[in-house]
């Protein structure tokens, strides 16, 4: 089976130029912005580098000579350089941000669209927290990559290279002397870079662990308190908190070495320039202005180099994030999203209801496993248009899997599933799912109002809503809610009891006008009285339509046209209630057990 999990860890070696090129393909549509940003950057750098040179001219031509000739001209030139530099820097910053934001907006939308289209097996393997991280933190890291990576790295490169050229032009021998300190700086920066990266990663890992721990135990606080185990949890948490603290302290220590270290090396470079240059001035081979300008350029040179380690680390982690995002984007969507067949091609259910006619739904020798043990083995079952079919069997027999396959959430490894005579893999699954509606075992409610949950993206139709509520027999239930249909249900419907959630889930299903209704053990938490009201209302509603009921408790299935007993991934017995009782098999044994209680 295809692996569909996305690990948090990506090895550094996997990251290469390809990743950057692929990221550039996202930047492509905004290339105009890139061009403007680069132009602004070049101009800003130019104005920035003009400044020490003007100072050199002032020192050599005015200050040393004590003359005012051209002095005010230079002052104005310097002023222009200051304004020019700041205006273009501002422009560059704003445009780069807009660029970054537009790119990540595209990327975020594409990622989400992709994630929604991925098969459910993806969700089985990836916890919610991780998928959210992909959309938030990883995408933000890509933004870093663009805003402080792309343009700024090019900018730094332009800056460092032009300074090197200027220094060479100013004084060749002085330049070679300063190379000593530059090499020293590069070695030091590289030495620290590795340690900083590891510690940064350690800190992130510890943050993720702490987050996961908090999420799990706050969500399960009822269990913690219910067993009075607050202290045990506090002790466990302290371990995570301490690990996090230690990583943070280590990082602080490293940065405390790094910044003063770089500053000392740059002071050393200054002293070398002054020493060598000063001797030249005394010997008359070089002007004071040149020495001062040299020192000024050197300082500007050290700026980008000082940030190099940080930027490198940002780029590294951004590339790792890119890789994680691209891994998801490269995953195969469920086949139904690939090229949806035209809705018009959706087959109409056969009108012919007489026995011997084509069944509406048919499982033919279906085999399936979730990647481990086989769940369905040569499973065959046919359901006619308008038939009420029950599927019963012990826990773990594969009942819910049948539903998962019918709705195309998973696809069988062998055999086929037909709807109105057509293999569902050739159908528009969206169209199929609009006709075959599921009421799941664990009713999920979205964080919103009861109304939002019933509509579930459909248009609001007041009349039909009223019919729905009435026919589900839940008008009174809704009236008793504090804000009626506008009552908020809380995170995952947590403000409602399991039974109340199931009632809303029923209304949602009916509102969507199902052709085929599947009830997957959908009334487990509802009391018998309400259950009777709801199910008999739905039975009336589904008159002439098809329904599939999955149940443990036999009283809900007795009235079905057909009962299929599923044992070990196979239909062991099949037929109406009476016939099964007479067969004296699994069903009659189970029935006997339940009747005696």
């Amino acid at each position, binding site marked *: 089976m295809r692996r569909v999990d996305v690990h948090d860890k990506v090895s550094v070696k996997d990251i290469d130029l390809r990743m950057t090129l692929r990221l550039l393909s996202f930047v492509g549509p905004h290339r105009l912005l890139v061009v403007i940003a680069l132009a602004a950057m070049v101009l800003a750098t130019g104005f920035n580098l003009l*400044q020490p040179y003007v100072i050199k001219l002032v020192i050599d031509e005015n200050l*040393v000579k004590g003359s*005012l000739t051209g*002095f005010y001209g230079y*002052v104005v030139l*310097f002023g222009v350089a*200051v304004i020019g530099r*700041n205006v273009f*820097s501002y422009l560059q910053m704003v445009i780069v*941000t*807009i660029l970054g934001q537009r790119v990540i*907006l595209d990327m975020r*939308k594409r990622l989400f669209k992709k994630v*929604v289209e991925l098969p*459910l097996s993806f969700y*089985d393997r990836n916890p919610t927290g991780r998928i*959210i991280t992909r959309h*938030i933190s990883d995408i933000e890291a890509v933004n870093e990559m663009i805003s402080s990576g792309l343009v700024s790295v090019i900018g730094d490169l332009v800056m460092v290279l032009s300074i090197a050229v200027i220094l060479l032009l100013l004084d060749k021998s002085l330049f070679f002397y300063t190379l000593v300190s530059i090499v020293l700086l590069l070695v030091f920066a590289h030495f620290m870079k590795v340690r900083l990266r590891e510690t940064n990663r350690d800190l992130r890992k510890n943050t993720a662990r702490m*987050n996961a721990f*908090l999420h799990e135990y706050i969500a399960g*606080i009822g*269990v913690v308190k*219910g*067993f009075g185990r*607050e202290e045990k949890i*506090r002790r466990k*948490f*302290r371990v995570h908190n301490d690990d*996090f603290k230690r990583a943070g302290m280590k990082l*602080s220590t490293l940065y405390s070495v790094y*910044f003063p270290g770089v*500053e000392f090396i740059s*002071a050393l470079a200054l002293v070398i320039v*002054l020493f060598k240059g000063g001797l030249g001035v005394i010997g008359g081979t070089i002007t*004071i202005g040149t020495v001062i300008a040299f020192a000024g350029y050197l300082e500007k040179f050290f700026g980008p180099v000082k940030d190099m380690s940080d930027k490198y680390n940002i780029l590294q982690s951004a590339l790792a994030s890119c890789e994680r995002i691209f891994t998801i984007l490269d995953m195969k969507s469920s086949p139904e999203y690939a090229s949806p067949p035209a809705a018009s091609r959706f087959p109409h259910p056969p009108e012919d209801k007489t026995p011997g006619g084509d069944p509406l739904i048919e499982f033919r020798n279906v085999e399936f496993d979730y990647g481990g043990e086989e769940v369905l083995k040569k499973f065959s079952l046919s359901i006619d248009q308008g038939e009420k079919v029950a599927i019963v069997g012990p*826990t*773990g027999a594969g009942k819910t899997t049948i539903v998962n396959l019918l709705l195309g*959430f998973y696809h069988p490894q062998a055999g086929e599933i037909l709807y109105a005579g057509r293999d569902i893999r050739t159908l528009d699954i969206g169209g199929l799912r609009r006709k075959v509606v*599921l009421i*799941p*075992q664990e009713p999920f*409610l*979205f*964080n919103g109002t009861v109304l939002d949950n019933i509509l*579930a*993206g459909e248009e609001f139709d007041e009349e039909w809503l009223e019919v729905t509520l009435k026919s589900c027999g839940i008008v009174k239930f809704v009236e008793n809610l*504090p804000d009626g249909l506008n009552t908020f249900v809380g*995170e995952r419907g947590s403000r409602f009891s399991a039974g109340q959630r199931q009632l809303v889930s029923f209304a949602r299903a009916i509102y969507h006008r199902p052709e085929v209704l599947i009830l997957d*053990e959908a009334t487990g*938490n*509802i*009391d018998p*009285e*309400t*259950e009777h009201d709801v199910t008999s209302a739905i039975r009336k509603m589904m008159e002439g339509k098809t329904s599939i009921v999955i149940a443990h*408790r036999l009283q809900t299935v*007795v009235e079905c046209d057909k009962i299929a007993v599923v044992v070990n991934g196979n239909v062991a017995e099949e037929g109406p209630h009476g016939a099964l009782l007479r067969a004296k098999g699994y069903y009659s044994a*189970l029935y006997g057990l*339940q009747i005696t*209680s």
Partner: protein
Amino acid sequence: MNPSKGRFSIKDIHLMIEYMKRRKDKYVLFSILRFLSSLTGLFVPWYLKSAVDSMKIEGGTPLFVDALLLMLLFAFLQGFFRFFGRRGFLVLARDIEGDIRDDLFRKVVNAPFPFYDRFATGDIMSRAVNDLNAIWLLLGPGFLTLIGTAFTYVIGIFFLLRIDPVLTLLVLVLIPVAALFGRVYSRRLYRLHRSAQETLSLLSDRLNNFITGIRIIKSYTMEDFVAREFSHTSEDYCGKNIEVSKVSALFHGTFAAATGFGVLLVLAVGGLFVIQKRISLGGFVAFTSYIGILSYPAIAVGWIINLYQRGTSAAGRIRELMEMEEEPGGAEEDEEIMTLELEGVTFSYIEGGSPVLDGLDLRVEKGEAVGITGLTGSGKSTIVKLLLGFYQPRSGTIRINGKPLASFKKGWLRRKVGVVFQDPHLFSDTILENISFPLEEPSFDRSVACAAMASVDREIETFPGQYQAVIGERGVTLSGGQKQRLTLARTICHESELIVLDDSFSSVDGRTEKNIIGNLMKLKGTRTIILISHRLSALSLCDRIVVIDEGRVIEEGTEDVLLKRRGLYYRFSVRQSLEGLGER
């Protein structure tokens, strides 16, 4: 969603100061180190001045070399002090962050239940992680830079004045101008930041909502609908970020420009002074160098203001949790539960809201098995929450052995009462850890015995790793029925005197359920059992059944008595009996 819109309060700073006070000595020590670092650092340009000036003096080479060596010495000393000062402050801030987080978690774990209704999981997490990070940034890098800036400015002005007082005053005029700009921008920036932050929260909420509900989204073909909603919020967030960056670029640009104009002033006025021989060339060079040193802190002022605003607002959000009262508890303990009484208990989740329980009376004796049933939403689960003291009744009393519940020591009750909750929540840990969660240390033998009682032992043995198998993500995926039986095994492991089962077998098939209830009923006599259920097959095994409707007891007695009364219980039994359905 976000109850923290409260205004800034001086108490927010007090929260941080409390923790800083405990480390007063260290703060003094590191401040001295930071002071020395500023002082030695400012000597570097001072000797730069001597170096430049001595270049022009005939035979000044020895002076020149001395000046350079002194520059190097002071640069080294600065780095030396800086390392210890910097590391000291940053590590201290991490320490404080850790302490606050620890205290915060203690508060969160010990908070009364309504707390968790008010604050969503994501919200509490965000406070414990993101807000504490903002506090670390303020107390660590923020505080460090603030102190460094203050020292550098105060000492720096002395050096500048020594070179030339007029030039110094001219340059210093730029500071209040920049500060004024900073104030205006930082307010706007703060508002924009906050608004962007809120949109981000919304985006995460949406994602969380959609990803957890993916099955429903697919079943109901809501893909396009959710994609639209998500795009909408994403675009909103994108726009807000661009707004933030426009203002923040302007903000940083202004400070950078202020530095540039500072150098321009020095060039124009200082240059003139050099030509007029009022100051030396070395003085001029040193002055530009000082502007460079002082400009970094000037840029940092904006950053510190930003950190301060984020840090204090984070402290406010943390304080909100810290000031929560802990769960109440009395002094009584170590008694066997002989009787449990609820008398006239009324309760609603929202103050003044429609009552969930409305004058409920119930009495349970030691060793009894009592069944509770009723319509969906009639308040059955609420009884459990009140029993455990998760919530307090609005009126009426709950008594154990005749003493009010509140007089017992907190935690005592929960050791005596074991509940199997309606929603099975397991932790992503091993099966063994999960079953023995109620114990201080996991016990293998006991876990196996409890799993057997809950009829889940045979399935556990088929898992790879058996009791060491991890639940969730990378481990075994459990069916709804397996989860319910594991939570039951966990409760049995608790060895409580009173076991409460809250509709705990909805996903378990009839045969297994009967087995389990049979096992549990063997405990009757030594342990008291309360069984909340809709299934009459299970309820019929109880000594006594209580039927609840609209928050009140409407029927009570043995099964025979209830069936004869022909009330709600009787109607339930008609609905559920196979014969009844078969005849129709």
